[in-house]
């Protein structure tokens, strides 16, 4: 009986032990399940069609071309290697500009007929309207084939206009560059501080000072990211705006400063632990040869613990790349390819947090945000694995 009970408890422990592994698998499954749908979704809004005049020889339009047409950036079909004909944009809501209510019928029963007529009449037209108003028999225009979003468009795309109609544009590049810019800036700022404090705590400070510093670093790690974001918004952003005389203070630089503070505890703790593993005998050997403590630090301790210090840096980068709220609050969130540190940028996590609330579940936008999540997950996974690899590597 008691044996049986022990077996049950052991089983329970085993199940608990597998929860974290299971969670990782579930995260992968659900992230990719939702994200994968993106490449099965039509590039144009679902339930709508795009039609042109029959004489128009244009074959297919990329989402980016569609956006440029509807934004008025492309005004002639020849700009996209078509015929020389000015483009006439027709949105469903424009219908009443062409026809009276009587002509359309009290229950809009003549709408399909009228749209068909209009498309036939105007050679340069591009019409965007709900599928239900497409004349079933004898539509006198050319319905453009439904394009699917491609991998290349997502991973190589340089624009992020998720709510643009008729065709939203999901290009990863500006968000990825924004994320990298902010994170690398953060690491460059926090590395000298992080390593200096780690050296100070591991080798210079006496026991009492270290005992005081340790909880302070822990506290720094414990402050919620939203509080850092708020502090950044209330103090750092205005300060940056004033100091550099910028139109707005919400910039990549502001994000880097806030992230640098947030990445400090990770870098300090991991690097200090690494330096502490240096055998005392090795330090003594160096000192016994007449080296100063500082020479011992940079000639023996740092080379010895270099893999741990590298791990600290990689973990710091991981923390910076994945950080959401603080960055969302201080970087200004402009989804454009960044050209300078002192411009608003938008990172991957901030995009997810800012847009998911407005993206209808199951839609292309929703799926694109999950794909962003999957990309983010993969980046951090690669970082985690490289830490694993670095720390398992033999010290020379």
């Amino acid at each position: 009986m008691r044996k049986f009970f022990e077996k049950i408890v052991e089983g329970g422990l085993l199940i608990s032990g597998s929860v974290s592994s299971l969670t990782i698998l579930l995260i992968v499954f659900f992230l990719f399940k939702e994200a994968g749908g993106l490449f099965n979704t039509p590039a144009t809004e679902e339930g709508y069609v795009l039609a042109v005049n029959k004489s128009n020889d244009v074959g297919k339009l990329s989402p980016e071309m569609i956006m440029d047409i509807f934004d008025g950036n492309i005004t002639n079909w020849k700009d996209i290697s078509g015929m020389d004909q000015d483009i006439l944009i027709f949105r469903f809501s424009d219908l009443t500009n062409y026809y009276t209510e009587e002509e359309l019928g009290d229950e809009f029963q003549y709408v399909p007929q009228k749209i068909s007529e209009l498309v036939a009449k105007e050679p340069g037209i591009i019409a965007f309207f709900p599928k239900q108003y497409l004349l079933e028999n004898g539509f006198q225009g050319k319905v453009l084939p439904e394009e699917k979003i491609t991998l290349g468009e997502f991973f190589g795309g340089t624009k992020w206009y998720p709510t643009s109609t008729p065709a939203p544009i999901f290009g990863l590049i500006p968000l990825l560059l924004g994320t990298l810019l902010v994170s690398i800036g953060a690491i460059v700022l926090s590395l000298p501080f992080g390593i200096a404090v780690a050296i100070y705590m591991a080798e210079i400070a006496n026991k009492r000072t270290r005992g005081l510093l340790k909880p302070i670093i822990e506290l720094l790690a414990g402050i919620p990211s939203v509080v850092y974001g708020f502090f950044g918004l209330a103090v750092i952003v205005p300060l940056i705006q004033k100091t550099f005389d910028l139109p707005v203070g919400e910039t990549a630089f502001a994000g880097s400063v806030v992230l640098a503070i947030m990445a400090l505890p990770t870098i300090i703790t991991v690097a200090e632990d690494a330096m502490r593993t240096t055998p005392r005998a090795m330090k003594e050997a160096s000192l016994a040869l007449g080296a100063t403590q500082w020479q011992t630090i940079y000639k023996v301790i740092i080379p010895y613990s270099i893999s741990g210090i590298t791990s600290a840096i990689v973990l710091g980068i991981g923390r910076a790349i994945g950080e959401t709220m603080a960055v969302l609050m201080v970087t200004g969130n402009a989804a454009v390819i960044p050209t300078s540190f002192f411009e608003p940028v938008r990172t991957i996590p901030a995009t997810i947090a800012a847009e998911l609330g407005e993206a209808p579940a199951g839609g292309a936008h929703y799926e694109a945000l999950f794909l962003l999540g999957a990309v983010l997950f993969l980046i951090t996974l690669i970082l985690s694995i490289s830490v694993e690899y670095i720390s398992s590597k033999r010290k020379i």
Partner: protein
Amino acid sequence: MIKIDAQNVDFYYGDFHALKNISMQIEANTSVAFIGPSGCGKSTFLRLFNRMNDLIPDTRLEGKIFIDGRDIYSKGEKVDTLRKNVGMVFQKPNPFPKTIFENVAYGLRVNGVKDNEYIEETVIKSLKQVVLWDEVKDKLKDSAFALSGGQQQRLCIARALAISPSILLMDEPTSALDPISTGKIEDLIHELKKEYTIVIVTHNMQQAARVSDKTGYFYLGELVEYGETRKIFTNPEKESTQNYITGRFG
């Protein structure tokens, strides 16, 4: 000539009275062995000669230690200058995570030698001095960790010799080694004492008898007896020494 002169040395770890009123004189170009049971203070005493105990917080020294007539604990004395003159070899081989060459060159480099030709000469000379040259001459660029324990320990001795100290402290240098490596290091000590003053702490009484000119026996923080090695091992004055060397305890 008196090389090391310790006068009425008392040493404390916190409240623990580790060394009690020890006075000892060590002559130049001799080798002296410290023996005694674990915790008797022999290693602590040794580590006072290059101020290695400075690294341990909450310790206190009373009395004076002179090396070449200079009070090494007086205010103006710089510890790094002292340690260049007083080399040390540790219980376990502790090479740096560097190449064989760089391990030996380390002491020269941290002391500001930039002349590469001189560094190379010195490294080769030091490796030859410890009879390691033939074994490593083709792999100077390999990691020092690739060497065997005995080779590592000789490398550590070469490292200490490279900066030309006049005193060599050895803290149980063979305790982690096999008998063959131990024999090689003992032979080496015989050679080295012609040029250096050697102080060696050992648990191994045969070793003390083989390599030293004088022996000091420590017990519970006191220097019980200090004299010619032959006399200590054949005809000690104190009963406690007699008991220890005949293996009745310790």
